[in-house]
């Protein structure tokens, strides 16, 4: 009996925590279907007639599709570029480490600790002179650089779990570094690469600071789209919720489709 009780209470606790964590998303979704008056009512209204007017307003006036397309292009392109650069870097660090490889890895990660606003003006000036302000290419470059340290770290730890003997055997057979990477490492580390890529896509999707500060009318992503619904005067709760639902829906869908691979990738190497 004792044995049965523990999992039950654990399950209840897990459900409570899960519900608490999910509640803001649920409330956001529910609010999106209310009118502005119902959205701010105190006490909150639980039963109401759902309406789609906030979605209509959010999509009609602000060009949702452009922002969504920018989000997809920027997050996927920056991830592809980051993987392309990180893959050989992680290979070199994992299989041909030098004296300073560990220092280099720690230094790379430490750059993530720099608050972005600290480099806003220099980056802004570089972008201005390079003609990259308000372009998707500019955002791709920034997002790639932002995510590169994490992607290198993730790939590095996945590569470390691959037995060196396999690569050594290939070397004995005369396979060069490029062949080792494409014919051995790529298939062996594919779950790891997939999870690193998914993480990079999600990070890039949610990135808001650069997306708001380096874009104007053309290259803004969904983060900039949501930001426009924060208003100094007037009621925008329902529209903000509708915009947020529209912004998180694609990545939630993508995340749930890719969930199995993501979990497998994240647990690779967890138990050695």
């Amino acid at each position, binding site marked *: 009996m004792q044995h049965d009780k523990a999992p039950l209470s654990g399950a209840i606790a897990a459900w409570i925590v899960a519900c608490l964590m999910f509640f803001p998303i649920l409330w956001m979704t529910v609010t999106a279907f209310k009118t*502005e*008056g119902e959205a*701010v*009512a*105190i006490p909150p209204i639980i039963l109401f007639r759902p309406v789609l007017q906030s979605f209509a307003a959010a999509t009609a*006036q*602000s060009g949702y599709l452009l922002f969504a397309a920018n989000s997809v*292009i920027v997050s*996927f*392109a920056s991830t*592809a570029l980051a993987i392309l650069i990180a893959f050989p870097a992680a290979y070199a660090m994992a299989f041909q480490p030098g004296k300073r490889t560990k220092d280099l890895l720690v230094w790379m990660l430490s750059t993530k600790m720099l608050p972005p606003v600290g480099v*806003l*003006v220099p980056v*802004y*000036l570089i972008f*201005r002179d390079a003609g990259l*302000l*308000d*372009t*998707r*290419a500019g955002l*791709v470059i920034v997002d790639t650089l932002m995510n590169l340290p994490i992607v290198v770290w993730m790939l590095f730890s996945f590569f470390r779990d691959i037995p060196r003997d396999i690569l050594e055997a290939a070397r004995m057979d005369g396979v060069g570094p490029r062949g080792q990477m494409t014919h051995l490492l790529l298939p062996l580390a594919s779950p790891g690469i997939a999870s690193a890529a998914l993480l990079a896509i999600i990070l890039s999707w949610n990135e808001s600071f650069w997306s*708001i*500060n380096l874009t*104007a*009318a*053309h*290259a*803004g992503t969904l983060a*900039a789209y949501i*930001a*426009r*619904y*924060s*208003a*100094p*005067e*007037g*009621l*925008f709760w329902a529209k903000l919720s509708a915009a947020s639902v529209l912004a998180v829906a694609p990545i939630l869908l993508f995340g749930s489709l890719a969930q199995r691979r993501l979990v497998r990738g994240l647990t690779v190497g967890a138990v050695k």
Partner: protein
Amino acid sequence: MKERRFAVAPLAAGLLAGALLAPIAATAATLTIATVNNPDMLVMQKLSPAFTKETGIKLNWVVLPENTLRQRVTTDIATHAGSFDIVTIGTYEAPLWAKNHWLDPVGNLGAAYDLADIFPSVRAGLSYNRTLYAVPFYAESSMTYYRKDLFKAAGLTMPAHPTYDEIKTFADKLTDPAKGIYGVCLRGLPGWGENMAYLTTLVNTFGGEWFNMKWEPQLTSPAWEKAITFYVDLMKKDGPPNATSNGFTENLALFSTGKCGMWIDATVAAGYLYDPAKSKVAADVAVAPAPTDVTPHGAHWLWSWALAIPVSSRQAVDARKFLAWATSKSYIGLVGRTQGWVAVPPGTRESTYKNPEYLKAAPFAPLVEQMILSADPLHPTMNPVPYTGVQFVGIPEFQGIGTTVGQDIAAALAGRETVAQALQSAEASTRRTMTEAGYIK
């Protein structure tokens, strides 16, 4: 299989490169406008195709939250990047940015524009050294909203010029927790544009000021102590619970759903509160001037959202055309005809307040006009001060100072500190900032 994989890779790369580098709209006759999201600005966006039809000039809108907009536009102007042709700014920024040579003067928008029709106090608020640097899209002051039905039931009458003592007496009588009615709703959310906008008018009318003529902070003066003690006591006794999370929007929701007996806030809320489709109290709401205490100086504020042209704009000529269109008499007429007269941008032009259709749709209009005309940002306090601005201090440091002091006062309202402790802490941080900035030698 292998060949196909190799064929797909360059194709995908080609598509990606195409998507990234595709020329993304940059024709000569396209203006980029940075603005905030509020009801009047949304109407402007909605009606702007009429401008494009008239002139052939296309418009791109960049809508951002107020503080983000300020930071975003400041970065762009300071680096001369020229991302924006028109920016939306307030009476706080207009003189400061003009002083930094960031804005083009906009005084001459053509003979048909009728600049003299714009209220002089609003023009003064958007000028620097007597030169106009932004044209008002709409303007507001502050006033008292109250519920006629609750006043009648309690046997009360709102005087023509209420005092804060009277407001307190009324609030005590109107508060009825059993019915969920709070005597008075006031801003409590910390922020220089939130609780401090209202509280600065309160301190002004209690005879206080932010700084004396030597730029020394006056936050522990008897006037500040009396005003903030009055506010905290009033809100604790007659205000809604958790008032520190209530800004303009939250109080608008509370009042419009019948939870407040009185509310002292922006005149721009009137259009919403008098609209039966949006407000449950539309039939019972009435307005009175903002209350006063020892002086009428600075008892009600003056704010305007205005359009300006940054010096970095590469299309200043076309930008001027848009400014002249969006703030003209004919634009106000267009809004009236297409969106209803109660929706016209208020507070900017004398002609709006002479229009019988507007006066019929907006019974609050004469008082709003009176409040805007009598607000004096050049003489905001009883004692002489070295700054301008009624509900703010027109120096760049005020955003930071106002928000920090707002947090101290919110702590007193929440009961975490006494009023004296909050004001001492506010005084110390303000003095430090002013010394570091070189105002205090």
